[in-house]
């Protein structure tokens, strides 16, 4: 059943990114790795743009690369460069003119101008050649960084530049496949990577701060933009680190702009100075950079984690990709983890991984690597190269014929596995299934020996999904029946919009930890996070905004969850300011104010414990609004009355994943129960006796 050509092009998706960095002493990376890493998510892109970027530390002449409308324009461009930066040698077009509007021309700089002088020259040249019509555009001018991009799929661009013959190796490779949304894709100027100085970036997302970022850059002298949001990212990184002399980490924090409430952001002073350089809206960015002595790969994700991004590491290399299947394709046994929302990863050739992009880093790969799966059983299907419609048609047929079990081997990124299979069958999955596994599932029991990606078990009504590795973002969205068990960790927005009916109650159990927005908008069912291996080390196994907008169901997290991770609170600084005002007014005694100000978590309940009713009523306006539902947070034991169903599900979870010992030990611990308050409408006390102040 194998050997059919991969046919996934009709699956439309966001852009795809890939990056790989060589660690010290490792063999250099050839361009074919960058191609393989991006071609396996070909369906994330389109024929409207792809590209490759490299960083290499070996010394050579600086190259200015430009798309030009004709040979004459290229000559003109050379003259302009000559006038501004000294001796320039034209080494001709990189590929034969093939009827496309622009061709890439390369100029080598014989004399090394100062970097600032060159940056200014590129800026001026790009402005001069963009008006009234675009005639030429410099898109890469690094000494260590070089970009190859065009219109087409990654394999088309790879061939266009004969990359396999042109470049033997580099320290960092980036690759990108594009699904244009906010600018056209008919010209190569809009393809990724975007580059400025010694930076090149590939981006998946749509930056809503684009206008503010352009304003910031224009204030620093940037005069010409191609008009796509991604270009500003490369410019910002270059200008912040080179022109303004910001350190790499501060530049990352400036762009990512962590929420004020996370405590990870820049100071008010730096934010004021750099206002306009922060990125907003969705982004997953992989960047390559060189400071002249080391080669870096930098990964940035937005604070809502609106776009997928996983990173991985093996003995020789560090990887970054939109999907885990990409990393597994080039390194089957790599340790793979995710960046937390608003986080960044930094790795360099000489230092390896410098920042992992997540706290509690020591535990994140406990579950995923070196799994020893049981042998396949039932009808065995080699899924290598099979498209998902073929896989699903096969499963459907097997189920219809009454086969109880099937095993899918060599699964690598195929999406929608199991969709449309309408009779019961057990399906064992070996490899890395793509997004949307078991969506709308009603009766199929899946067991995955590996990790799963985004959007698993969305709108599942019945059956089960058992994952022996990790799961990524948006696991079990609108889950409304059946069981979803994950041995390892899960990502952002797990169990959002879960719901239940009279005869159906879904259970979602995660053995490790989850990121932000667990159970957001949850209306029913049960979500459990066990934090195995985390709680023992004092690590809270959930991110922030747990149960935000929750109206029903139950969330159970082993151990104590700090109140500031539950729901969505007004900014602590706003609440403190109000209390400070009350203290100045003489309405609140200073001692009480100081005590509240020193509390690590300032939520409504901590105010309620100290403030008299009239003051509480006044502060409540910061917490309450018409969609507000008060959450009840309690410490419970699962042996208490009312948790028998959860306990039996956890016993089944332990059995399926062969971790009975760990789970039974965990069951002895207290859990934090989060559910909507019965009188959830309001936080304002109405008929209660006020507590005495102080």
């Amino acid at each position, binding site marked *: 059943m194998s050997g059919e050509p991969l046919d996934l092009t009709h699956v439309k998706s966001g852009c795809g990114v890939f990056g790989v960095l060589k660690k010290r002493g490792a063999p250099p990376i050839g361009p074919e790795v960058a191609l393989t890493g991006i071609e396996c998510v070909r369906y994330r892109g389109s024929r409207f743009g792809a590209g490759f970027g490299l960083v290499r530390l070996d010394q050579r002449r600086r190259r200015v690369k430009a798309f030009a409308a004709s040979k004459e324009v290229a000559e003109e461009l050379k003259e302009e460069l000559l006038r501004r930066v000294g001796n320039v040698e034209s080494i001709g077009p990189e590929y034969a003119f093939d009827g496309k509007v622009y061709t890439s021309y390369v100029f080598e700089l014989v004399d090394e101008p100062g970097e600032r002088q060159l940056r200014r020259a590129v800026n001026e040249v790009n402005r001069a050649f963009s008006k009234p019509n675009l005639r030429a555009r410099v898109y890469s001018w690094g000494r260590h960084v070089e970009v190859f991009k065009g219109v087409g799929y990654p394999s088309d661009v790879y061939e266009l530049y004969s990359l396999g013959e042109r470049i033997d190796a580099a320290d960092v490779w980036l690759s990108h496949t594009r699904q244009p*949304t*906010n600018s056209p894709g008919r010209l190569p100027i809009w393809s990724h990577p975007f580059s400025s100085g010694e930076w090149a970036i590939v981006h998946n*997302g*749509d*930056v*809503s*701060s*684009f*206008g*503010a970022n352009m*304003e910031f850059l*224009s*204030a*620093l*002298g940037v005069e010409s933009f191609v*008009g796509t949001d991604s270009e500003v990212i490369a410019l910002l990184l270059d200008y912040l680190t080179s*022109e*303004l002399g910001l350190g790499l980490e501060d530049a990352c924090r400036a762009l990512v702009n962590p*929420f*004020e409430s996370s405590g990870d952001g820049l*100071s*008010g*002073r730096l*934010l*004021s*100075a750099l*206002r*306009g*350089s*922060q990125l*907003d*809206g*969705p982004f997953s960015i992989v960047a390559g950079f060189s400071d002249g002595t080391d080669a870096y790969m930098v990964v940035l994700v937005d604070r*809502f984690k*609106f776009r997928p991004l996983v990173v991985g590491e093996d003995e020789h290399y560090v990887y970054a990709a939109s999907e885990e299947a990409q990393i597994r394709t080039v390194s089957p046994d790599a340790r793979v983890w995710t960046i937390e929302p608003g986080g960044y990863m930094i790795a360099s050739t000489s230092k390896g991984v410098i920042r992992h992009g997540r706290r509690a880093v020591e535990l994140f790969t406990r579950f995923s690597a070196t799994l020893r799966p049981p042998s396949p059983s039932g009808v065995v299907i080699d899924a290598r190269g099979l498209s998902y419609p073929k896989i699903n048609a096969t499963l459907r047929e097997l189920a219809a014929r009454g086969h109880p079990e099937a095993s899918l081997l060599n699964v690598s990124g195929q999406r929608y596995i199991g969709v449309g299979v309408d009779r019961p069958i057990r399906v064992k999955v070996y490899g890395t299934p793509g997004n949307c596994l078991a969506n709308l599932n009603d009766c199929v029991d899946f067991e995955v020996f590996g990790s799963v990606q985004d959007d698993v078990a969305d709108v599942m009504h019945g059956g089960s999904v058992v994952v022996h590795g990790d799961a990524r973002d948006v696991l079990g969205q609108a889950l409304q029946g059946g069981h979803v068990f994950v041995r390892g960790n899960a990502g952002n927005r797990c169990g959002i919009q879960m719901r239940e009916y009279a005869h159906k109650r879904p259970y979602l159990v995660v053995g490790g930890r989850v990121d932000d927005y667990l159970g957001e*908008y949850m209306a029913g069912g049960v979500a459990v996070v066990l934090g195995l291996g985390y709680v023992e080390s004092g690590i809270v196994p959930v991110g922030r*905004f747990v149960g*935000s*907008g929750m109206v029903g169901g139950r969330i159970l997290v082993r151990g104590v969850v700090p109140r500031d991770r539950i729901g*969505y609170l007004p*900014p602590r*600084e*706003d609440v*403190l*300011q*109000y209390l*400070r*005002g009350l*203290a*100045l*007014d003489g309405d609140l005694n200073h001692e009480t104010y*100081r005590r509240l*100000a020193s509390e690590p978590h300032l939520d409504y309940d901590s105010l309620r414990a100290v403030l008299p009713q009239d003051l509480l009523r*006044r502060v409540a*306006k*910061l917490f309450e*609004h*018409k*969609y*507000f539902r008060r959450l009840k947070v309690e410490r419970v034991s699962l042996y208490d009355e009312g948790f028998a169903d959860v306990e039996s599900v956890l016993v089944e979870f332990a059995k399926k994943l062969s971790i009975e010992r760990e789970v039974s030990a965990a069951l002895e611990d207290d859990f934090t129960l989060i559910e909507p308050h019965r009188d959830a409408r309001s936080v304002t006390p109405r008929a209660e006796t006020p507590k005495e102040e102080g």
Partner: protein
Amino acid sequence: MAGEPPIVSMGSTAPPSVDEPRFILDRIVSDGAQVTRPSIDPYREPVETHLYLFAGSVRLSMPVAVGGLAELTFKEAAEVVKACYRMGVLVDLHGLREIPVEAVRRGTHVLAPHDAVNSGEFNAVQMTVRSPGALNEVAGALPFERKSVVARVPPLEDSEFYRSVCAAGFNGIIVDEEIGHRDAVELEIATSACDRALKVPGPDGLPLRNRVNLMASSERIRSSADAFKLIGLGAEVVVFTRSWKVAVDYGPGMEESLLAERLEYFLTGVQRELKLLAGAAGVSSLWSSLTGSRELFRSIELERPVRLKLGVKSAGEW
């Protein structure tokens, strides 16, 4: 429930679609979130409205100030000062004959006339805001570190003028439409002109604009939508001088505590509306992503010369 934004439909009931457009602001519309740039639900997820003024020394909860206090009684003005402080917004005492003692201890959030009023050189009224000694203590119990001097200027289109204000060491500029001048232009144009005039590298290499805070003040600022658009044209703080009084139903003899309570709810409502507007545009940080971000807006039936001055594209323009 007080302080709640009204529920509206998908379609706009605002000018220019339904109401007659009266100002430039009425012809500017927000270019909302798209499929690939999702909107944000500010009731369940963070949309940050806070900002810092004066090189990070003062934190405001939202880009809003309350002004137009001249007609208030001394006691009423004192209550407004206190309410604004609690809500973390600036209060603008311009025009008030006597400064309430409450304002002195809340100096971080008070725009007060400068000790030595010097309106000659820039045709500007100087105002000050003071920096606190330490942010987490009860202000007033502590000495202030320094004063930030703010220039109150008439709306002009003259970039040299704004640059010279900046060069003279002012930490902020209030473009005030109620200050008469023979060359005065619309607030929208002046705000944009000032913002753009300062978009040049300063002596430290950083944008000059990031050393100075820009505020826009006018009696005709009606709503959070007006404020949202003025922020998009470059203002960091928008001063409501009249509409808040309409909203709280201000009239002579009003009970001071009622005035304060209603003003707090008004500000809560404005903050929620700003979050909804930002969320609808896919923006989660007003200060950094919206200020001067003309790309988030489009204009409807605005003449080309005005569009160019504002830097706002026409509807449908890529």
